[in-house]
């Protein structure tokens, strides 16, 4: 039981990290909160569903397609929404409203297109043989989703720490004004980060039918809240702290589902509050302020 909960928790932790990663990237670079994050995840899920049922594309191969498509969507969307927002008095709080509106629009369009029912993709398209680890059995779809999440996280790490544009992105994260004055094209860097963030959400959406069981147009808000919990645990504006937050969230969720299932929904929130009270800026936060 314990081994099962821990390993499943780590797999879900990887997946939750992927969900939160994009949201945290946008917050870190632009200081705006994308409340429509979960809705982009939902759109990614429906793209995968559509590719699978109409074109017979295996979700594994949908991942690169969806990733490029959503990066291309994110680029112009950034120029449409964010610069205008940053000219305002309190961009962080105002972004909550703007993206709440966007989330409403996306959810409405998805409901018009797909109705209110749930959709799923059979789990065995990711492999029908269950995997055995430490005498425990796990569905292949969980393993594949966990591995795909890990690969995406690794790619984000490479992008941020091993490329020139990633270096510029981190510069914008730590000091926007100074990055601007050293000649970094802040808008181009931000637009790319925005695109990548939406793409990460969409890739998580491709895996959502396997990890959540099904997808439906109204799932966005709940996903956004979960990703928030994950990134706040890790530390806002620190994309790789998200991985730590995701792991804590995943393991806590699975332990609770195993040992006290009727209280399982409660625990992630309690963990979040406890972590924040002990470390007010998340697990990897640098500044701790006492007032």
């Amino acid at each position, binding site marked *: 039981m314990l081994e099962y909960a821990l390993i499943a928790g780590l797999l879900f932790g990887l997946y939750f990290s992927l969900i939160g990663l994009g949201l945290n990237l946008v*917050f870190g670079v632009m200081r705006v*909160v994308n409340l429509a994050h979960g809705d982009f995840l939902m759109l990614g899920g429906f793209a995968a569903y559509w590719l699978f049922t109409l074109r017979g594309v295996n979700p594994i191969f949908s991942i690169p397609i969806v990733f490029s498509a959503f990066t291309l969507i994110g680029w112009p969307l950034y120029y449409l*929404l964010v610069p*205008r*927002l940053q*000219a*305002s*008095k309190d961009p*962080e*709080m*105002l972004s*909550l*409203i*703007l993206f*709440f*509106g*966007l*989330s*409403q*629009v*996306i*959810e*409405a*369009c998805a*409901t*018009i297109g797909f109705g209110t029912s749930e959709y799923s993709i059979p789990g065995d398209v990711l492999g029908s043989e269950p995997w055995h680890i430490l005498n425990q059995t796990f569905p292949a779809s969980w393993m594949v989703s966990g591995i795909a999440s890990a690969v995406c996280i690794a790619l984000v790490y490479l992008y941020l720490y091993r490329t020139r544009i990633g270096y510029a992105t981190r510069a914008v994260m730590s000091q926007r004004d100074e990055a601007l004055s050293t000649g970094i094209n802040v808008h181009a860097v931000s637009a790319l980060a925005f695109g990548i963030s939406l793409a990460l959400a969409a890739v998580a959406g491709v895996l959502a039918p396997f990890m959540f069981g099904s997808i439906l147009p109204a799932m966005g*808000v709940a996903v956004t*809240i979960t990703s*928030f*919990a994950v990134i*706040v645990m890790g530390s*806002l504006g620190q994309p790789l702290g998200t991985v730590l937050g995701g792991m804590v969230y995943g393991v806590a969720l699975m332990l609770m589902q195993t040992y006290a299932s*009727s*209280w399982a*929904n*409660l625990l992630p*929130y*309690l963990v*979040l*509050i406890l972590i*924040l*009270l002990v470390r*007010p*800026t*998340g697990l990897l936060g640098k500044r701790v*302020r*006492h*007032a």
Partner: protein
Amino acid sequence: MRNGLRHLIFVLVPVVAAFAVLPWVYSNHLLLFNFVVFLVLAQGINVIYGFTGYLPFGYVGFFGAGAYGFSLLVLRMHAPPLLALVAGALAALILGIILTPLLRLEGAYFAIASLAASEVVAQIISNPNLTNVTQGPYGIRLSGVYAPRFAYSVAVVILALTLLIVVYLRNSRFGLALQAIRENPVSASMAGVDVVRGRTIAWLLSALIAGLIGAVYAWYISVFYAETVFDLGMSIFAIVFALFGGTATIVGPISGVAILYGIYNGIGIATPQYFQLIYGILIMALVSFLPNGVLPLLKRWGINVP
């Protein structure tokens, strides 16, 4: 204090009088009641966010606490509604006191932690293991005390109280001290403002406001579930209304509710998806073209608003 008197006469009195008279003129009483609820919630957000800069995403937690405090006293003790109302307010106040440590957090951290706290309360209340105490997931039925007209009048009284608090904050040294804390806590504390005391009082005031209106809400609709009174959408609506009008003012949240909730109900005739679509586009357009709310726009045109 002359300004304060002007605000009372030109803002508080007309708004309260309008809602006191409207039920005789307009027949959709539920809509009027909802307007009062959102006016109070938006002003409650104004007290905590507008004056101290803390944005509580889980503000609805206090609303739900008030609703359940009220209902449990009525169901289990058979208390008269007005006494139960006090219990609802106390429940929200106690929750506020328990959550005071959250004020150590800043910005988005505070927003999300308060959301998590509200979720925790909602999950505990709707847990099937507690059915004997809170009715768990089966919801509350208060047919014994059902009295919508009386509840509506009490809601209008609460609206008046809330507006009174905001008028006071807008025109007093204390309100000014809170705004100083919002702009820069360190400087405020150097200038002799008791930062911790100030923000705690504002936090508890806003909790009390939400608890009171939550209790009246439970009384008015009398049949509801935990998801109804802990609905995150309610927090978001109240925040959107307050921010849209302009915070740290008296008429800002009022005009936000009047315009946005008015439009919301105006286009409510279409199918829900199209309605949601139009509403979403509208919010995005408003934020993109009026990023600081409506009131600063009026100020730029030389019209000074309270």
